[in-house]
């Protein structure tokens, strides 16, 4: 039987929120696992507090997990949640502003004590103050019912309470008309070592589900239903950017048949890559946790010098420290992959928030004329492909390569159609052409300008390299004026040569030429894609172009962009791609910049782009720079 307020939609955004200790992250990932099996597309994003474990019940200790599920293509975690499960008042307070009008709000009534309300900073109980009037409020004593359910296992009150998240998960599963089978399987595997906890969680899970079943309550609880996604056939898994990037680096090692030596110093939000790779020894990956970022970059350079695939990874402040070492890799012409998981700045900034603001640093941020290739991943699963691409470029051209990702990609998850590794071409590196001897060291490939990669231990090729300018032929130190000019050109030409090997820039959505193109890069892909898709439904002419190669640009970029009257460049920074476009292509762009630490919302993009579409075509009359939706 359908209750009046059921929610049926193409896709639904659900958000779980509670204390760091309430296990909402686990609840979220399990709900996603279950969702996947129902053939829905999804996008997720966890929202951690900055503190490790802030005092219980405080607003800054709230942890949340958002899932956008339904008919595809789903490319973001969604703008405004339609459903919120809040385990305590603080969780309600923090997340209420995000909700869609008329959203369903399930709260754990037990937690709405005077103490809980004050801790959350509520002067008045929001359930009575009327501020929830525009939502569907459902109060459930989740804690009480959980304790009830797990009583047989004789756990302490606090331990018993830990099963809350499973109880709630059971209920949500019911609302989506699903059973709890596959979650049960997971619980059994996960808690095999601790029977009591296992059984308590199973009991809570089933009780939550049964709670929905119980007739007299059903009325209060809506059914939630979404469209089904039409997936390309194949084997899928859910993946986060960090996992995909780590797997991609391991895959590159496999494709190049070289060990990967990953050198890093922990930092938010780059650490997940380190943690993943630390478990990939069997894939030929060695991990070195260095004493600092400088040592990490240097060790990766040393590893590359030794013939391994040297990779170093950090976030903005740590990348800044690697700057000098990266210059050495440029001069010594050694392959090096530098992964930059961007975060809010400047300085320590907002470690747990996302931003796209290291593009300047990647492209221009070194002493002297020191060009290098820069590429960026655009979605969690794309991190896999771009990691392989970064290694491919580094080995082909014998140069350091920047791979840009960010805090959003690192933690966001999406379904990933598992690739067939045989579809990836092996990664080749330059071998010595001539006979043994120093002469061979700088005998470059004429197309890529990459030099042979010859590691110590190779008989007959003993040679010296370093950070001083070198003779373009012999590789010996040279202070000669003309030679320095020639080497400077060579370094520039080498990076330019990358464009001869990468695919032409394509248009994601919309016409190949027209009034407006929305040009983006990196993690904003999903939001821009959806925004343009929505606008296209209204039969307006707009196109979405998304860059993965930022330096050099694909060869057809200039021609492609010249096909549009206006270029809108939305970025989660103050206009760094805009600078690149002006500098390298001399084009005029309309900037849309948002620097809040939050990903773009589809609706704010739609609003801005439509405003541009209806505005007169005369660019001069438009404000050149606009700023993000502040709400």
């Amino acid at each position, binding site marked *: 039987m359908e209750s009046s307020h059921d929610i049926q939609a193409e896709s639904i955004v659900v958000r779980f929120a509670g204390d760091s200790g309430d296990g909402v992250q686990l609840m979220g990932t399990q709900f996603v*696992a279950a969702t*996947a*099996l129902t*053939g829905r597309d999804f996008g997720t994003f966890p929202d951690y507090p900055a503190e490790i474990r802030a005092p219980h019940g405080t607003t800054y200790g709230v942890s949340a997990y958002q899932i956008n599920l339904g008919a595809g293509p789903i490319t973001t975690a969604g703008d405004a949640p339609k459903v919120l499960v809040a385990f305590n008042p603080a969780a309600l307070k923090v997340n209420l502003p995000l909700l869609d009008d008329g959203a369903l709000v399930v709260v754990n009534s037990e937690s709405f004590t005077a103490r809980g309300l004050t801790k959350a900073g509520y002067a008045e109980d929001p359930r009575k103050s009327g501020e929830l009037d525009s939502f569907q409020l459902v109060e459930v004593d989740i804690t009480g019912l959980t304790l009830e359910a797990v009583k047989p296992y004789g756990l302490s009150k606090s331990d018993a309470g830990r099963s809350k998240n499973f109880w709630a998960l059971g209920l949500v599963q019911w609302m989506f008309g699903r059973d709890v089978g596959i979650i049960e399987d997971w619980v059994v595997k996960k808690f095999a070592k601790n029977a009591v906890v296992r059984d308590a969680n199973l009991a809570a899970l089933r009780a939550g589900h049964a709670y929905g079943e119980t007739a007299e309550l059903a009325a209060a609880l809506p059914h939630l239903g979404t469209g089904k996604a039409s997936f*390309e*056939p*194949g*084997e*899928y*898994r*859910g993946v986060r950017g960090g996992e995909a990037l780590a*797997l991609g680096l391991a895959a590159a*090692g*496999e494709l190049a048949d070289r*060990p990967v*030596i990953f*050198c890093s110093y922990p930092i938010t939000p780059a650490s997940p890559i380190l943690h993943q790779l630390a478990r*990939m*020894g*069997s*894939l*030929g*990956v*060695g991990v*070195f946790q*260095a*004493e600092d970022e400088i*040592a990490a970059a*240097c*060790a*990766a*350079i*040393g*590893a*590359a*010098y*030794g*013939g*391994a695939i*040297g990779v170093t990874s950090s976030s903005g402040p740590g990348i800044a420290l690697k700057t*000098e*070492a990266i*210059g*050495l890799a440029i001069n010594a012409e050694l392959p090096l992959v530098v992964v930059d998981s961007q975060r809010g700045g400047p300085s320590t900034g907002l470690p747990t928030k996302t931003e796209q603001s290291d593009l300047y640093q990647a492209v221009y941020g070194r002493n002297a004329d020191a060009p290098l290739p820069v590429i960026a991943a655009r979605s969690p699963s794309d991190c896999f492909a771009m990691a392989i691409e970064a290694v491919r470029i580094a080995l082909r051209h014998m140069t350091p390569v920047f791979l840009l990702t960010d805090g959003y990609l690192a933690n966001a998850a999406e379904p990933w159609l*598992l690739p*067939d590794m045989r579809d990836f071409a092996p990664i080749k590196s330059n071998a010595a052409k001539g006979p043994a001897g120093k002469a061979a060291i700088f005998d470059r490939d004429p197309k890529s300008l990459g030099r042979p990669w010859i*590691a*110590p*231990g*190779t*008989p*007959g*090729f*003993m*040679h*010296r390299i*370093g*950070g001083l300018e070198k003779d373009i032929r012999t590789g*010996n*130190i040279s202070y000669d004026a003309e030679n320095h000019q020639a080497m400077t050109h060579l370094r520039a030409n080498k990076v330019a040569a990358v464009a001869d090997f990468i695919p032409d820039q394509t248009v994601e959505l919309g016409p190949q030429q027209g009034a407006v193109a929305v040009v983006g890069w990196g993690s904003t892909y999903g939001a821009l894609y959806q925004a343009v898709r929505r606008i296209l439904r209204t039969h307006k002419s707009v196109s979405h172009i998304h860059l993965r190669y930022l330096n050099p640009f694909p060869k057809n970029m200039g021609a492609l962009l010249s096909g549009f009257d206006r270029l809108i460049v939305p970025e989660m920074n103050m206009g760094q791609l805009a600078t690149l476009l002006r500098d390298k292509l001399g084009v005029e762009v309309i900037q849309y910049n948002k620097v809040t630490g939050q990903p773009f919302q589809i609706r704010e993009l739609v609003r801005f782009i439509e405003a541009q579409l209806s505005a007169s075509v005369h660019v001069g009359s438009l404000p050149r720079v606009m700023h993000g939706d502040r709400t």
Partner: protein
Amino acid sequence: MSAQLTAKDFASEQEVRWCPGCGDYAILKAVTRVLADVGAQPENTVFVSGIGCAARFPYYIESYGFHTIHGRAPAIATGLRLANPELDIWVVTGDGDALSIGGNHLLHALRRNVGLKILLFNNEVYGLTKGQFSPTSRPGTRTPSSPAGSFDSPVSPGLFALGAGASFIARAIDVDKQGLGGVLEAVHAHEGAAFVEIYQNCIVYNDDVFSTFTAKENAADGQLHVKHGEPLVFGVDRGKGLRFDVATMKLEIVDAKARPAEVLRHDETNSTLAQLLLAMQPPEFPVALGVVHRNPRTSFEAAFYKHHPTGLKRTASVADAMRQTSTWWVK
């Protein structure tokens, strides 16, 4: 292994560009000789350096060489070590390169016990940048950046290395063929990090700063050449010895002939003795030279490869790894 090579075979074709009379020449000579003596293979030998006069060293050796950036040689060499633990990796550095900008990397290379042969050419000055004082310069050193005399209190390379947990600490004098040669052979034989401080004369910016114990006339009383298991004696016909006074917990010099029983014997595994010896300073005490401390323990690369028994060879495929989580099929 191919035919025995000579010192000449280890000299590169590059023209040596140190100042005439620089102590680095003598060190270069000693190193090439030892490389030949121990039967090193050029292709399996790598010299990694930072920046400085000392750091020019790799250019002059016929082997693999990497002249990197200032202070970072130990970090770069660590990465190289992990990539190829079969190589003989020498790190050549100066007092500024190693202890000023590079102090952190040296600390961690030593405490991790990375298999590197680290030669620190200590001339107590920044030579390449034209003579500013360094972290080993004595207080009062007048230089372009300390015209009225420096007032930094210096660090002792040996004591620093000991505090960092170095498994091998030795000392030698640039022009002391025998002493330096012996130390270099021990360095070559050591697994894990081998740290050597070489007193090197910078004839241009800090001439004769070590002459209080290196000069011929001061050698006997100024130098104590230690040898594991042998009494710690020095002076003309080795007439003086070191004794430890428990009451003061300090060393003292005694007549070795008169009271031989009280003279300490060198134990290179004892870090307390190492500290006492490394702390000795002229004129009160002689300078301890030779292998002062050697206490082998598992090297970093050995521990690393214990975690990678197949030596970073693949034993699984990425195709399988990406499926190590719940997956689903769409038909």
